[in-house]
């Protein structure tokens, strides 16, 4: 089955989103279609939006990372711990947390690209480790973080909160990097045929490792931004992020076999999931349903992908 050109993945998803918005507006007038609600949606998706850029990069190169949620929590907790218990300056604490997150990514990268352990197993293992470290260090959470730390997460510029601007900047940057630069174009070659890429002189293990480091860095940055926004290092704040982010990226056109996908698509995927979750919250549906529905969307998206491929 071949779809006409204008009916590509992005426009179809945007159409679905508009439909969702229309239905929600009709069901919940006065609650859903308000400026307040839409800024809330944007604010809540910002953290996933930052992380999905890294996940898209990994998926394009034919791999993925399940430990992102662990890294997210761990970075937030490390930053908080450094400034509260370590009494270090805010900037230094953030820097240390970012280094920890990138090291977490580096460990993933070395295990997957050098030791050549399957990414599913490797990052499932490190997911457990990073989550554990976060809870071990942060206990139930580290509260009352300094104001100077909370400011960037809570500041409002032109009606939008700090994390939304951070996401916008990172997404623009990665969209440019992935579509226009020589270095990042190589990820598409790797995802398409890693052996051919190696025989064409592309440094496959090096690039994959770098991809995991970038993923770790973005997950850490996102986790720190989240801690900043809520003024607290929540030790389990990242749990479940891997499901949402991988689902968003696949929805947005990534393939588990690699070689395709764009940042724009990934962001639309994140927006789609955020809209569904927002509708569920307004309808006062139990939060557990969010996970059930996100999981169903992931399976449906992959099944759709298989179905479309049979042309």
């Amino acid at each position, binding site marked *: 089955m071949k779809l006409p050109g204008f009916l590509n993945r992005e426009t179809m998803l945007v159409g679905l989103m508009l439909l969702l918005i229309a239905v929600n507006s009709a069901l919940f007038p006065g609650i859903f279609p308000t400026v307040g609600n839409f800024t809330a949606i944007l604010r809540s998706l910002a953290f996933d939006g930052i992380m999905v850029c890294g996940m898209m990069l990994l998926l394009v190169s034919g791999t993925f990372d399940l430990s992102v949620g662990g890294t997210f929590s761990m970075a937030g907790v490390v930053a908080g711990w450094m400034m509260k218990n370590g009494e270090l300056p805010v900037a230094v604490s953030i820097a240390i947390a970012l280094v920890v997150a990138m090291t977490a990514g580096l460990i993933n990268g070395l295990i997957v690209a050098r030791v050549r352990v399957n990414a599913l197993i490797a990052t499932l293992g490190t997911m457990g480790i990073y989550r554990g470290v976060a809870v071990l260090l942060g206990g139930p959470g580290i509260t009352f973080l300094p104001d100077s730390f909370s400011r960037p997460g809570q500041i409002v510029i032109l009606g939008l909160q700090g994390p939304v601007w951070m996401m916008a900047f990172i997404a623009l940057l990665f969209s440019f990097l992935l579509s*226009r*630069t*020589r*270095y990042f*174009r*190589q990820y*598409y*070659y790797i995802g*398409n*045929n890693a*052996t*051919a*890429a*190696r*025989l*064409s*002189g*592309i*440094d496959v293990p090096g690039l994959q490792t770098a991809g995991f480091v970038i993923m770790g860095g973005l997950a850490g940055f996102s986790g720190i931004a989240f801690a900043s926004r809520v003024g607290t290092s929540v030790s389990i704040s990242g749990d479940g992020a891997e499901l949402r982010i991988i689902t968003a990226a696949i929805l947005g056109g990534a393939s588990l076999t690699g*070689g*395709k996908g764009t940042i724009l698509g990934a962001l639309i995927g994140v927006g789609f999931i955020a809209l569904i979750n927002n509708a569920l919250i307004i309808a006062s549906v139990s939060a557990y349903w969010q996970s059930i529905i996100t999981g169903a969307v992931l399976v449906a998206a992959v099944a759709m992908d298989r179905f479309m491929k049979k042309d």
Partner: protein
Amino acid sequence: MTTLLRCTGITKTFPGVRALSSVDFEVRDGEIHALVGENGAGKSTLMHILAGVYPPDSGVIEFQGRAVEIPDERRAQQMGIGIVYQERSLFDLLTVAENIFAGNQPAGRLGTIDRTQMHIAARDLLRRVELHVDPATPLGRLSAAQQQVVEIAKALSFDSRLFILDEPTAALTIAETNTLFRVVRQLKERGVGIVYISHRLEEVFQLADRVTILKDGRLQGTFAVAETTPEQLVSLMVGRDLVREPGHPPPLVRDVPALEVIGLSGPKTKPVTFSAWSGEILALAGLAGAGRTEFARTIFGAEAQQAGEVRIQGKPARIRSPRDAIAAGIGYLPEDRKELGLFLEMSIAQNIAAARLDHFGSWHLDDRRIEEVALEYMKRLSIAAPSVHTRVGSLSGGNQQKVLLARWLVRDPLILIVDEPTRGVDVHAKAEIYALLRSLAREGKAIIVISSDLPEVLALAHRIIVMRQGAIAGELSAGEASEEAVMRYAAIGVEEVAAK
């Protein structure tokens, strides 16, 4: 002899292509009927129709005297049509016996598999195809050639009346080919009809009773093999006479070789020493499995270099990865295009640019420039495709190979190693690839051709190194080379293997 299969007026159209137009084809009991033609001539389409993969648009198929319809593969098997595909359809982790009886295992009373019965039956089938392996061996441990023979045993297990063999010798050594021919002749003696699809005309003349030629989906004629010649077949296949340019001597200045390999060994190869000069085409001849590919991969850094040295224009080169080799000026075009060479889902332009992205911008990538360069090479190599954005996976074998050659032309290496450059490529594209390799040598590159196709080696090479069992068995100049001379060097190894 009575007619076993008669196809009349078979027509099949795919979107945009008429794959077969009104083709008549007939196979008699106990006949080996060769089916030849360039890639895209319609051989596979006809085979797929007989196998029940898809139905014809129009036309009648009569099998054993009755008009039949073949709706699916299973029905074809039950009717007694057995197919041995070129692409393996076997399972590496299962045993030989399990592969032979995949989907067809002898079952006991409770529907459980009767292993004893299965192994007895498998052993019998393996004896008939002269494959001396234990039916309990995992298939993955067998060589590619042995696996091909298992494929035949599998088709035998259905007690087929008609066998269709699609390029069965593509991956086989000479000895294995001979075994296969014996098996095929035995089948013939038992009255089985055989459709033999092959690119190799010499096999047609060794084996077949009659030959049918297809070109662009049309029937070019059916002849008794005794009444035709290879030249006639080739001209019917391509519609023109094939000119074979003799190997001209290169203008050699034998000072510093472009490539010097001194005692180089890898995980799968013995130490090898040789040199290649600019301007020459050097062939590495030998039988399949002689270690030529492994050796080329070692030079290229795709396998670890364990001992020895590689010098490029007299300077030692440290090669630890293909990346190092490319930087040092070596290009390598692998044997298995689809697995090792191409990015099938990507465009022609992206494939051509793959080995030289740095040429198109130090960090920002200039896509317009990539497309311009790709278009230039598409024209120069006459790659037949609608545009530079065409997905490489949709191209024919010959055009895919040209895309890979274009990739290395963009890279402009001093030394280009091409591994089986014309395997699965049609006669026309083959001639173009030969011309291209010759012009590259004239431009001053050292071209190393790995080929198991002897006429190809003789047509192209200025110098021939024959390898066997991972070592050099002999060297021949273009003047002294003949098929017999090359085979003498290459074949001693076969006897040694047989003696073991």
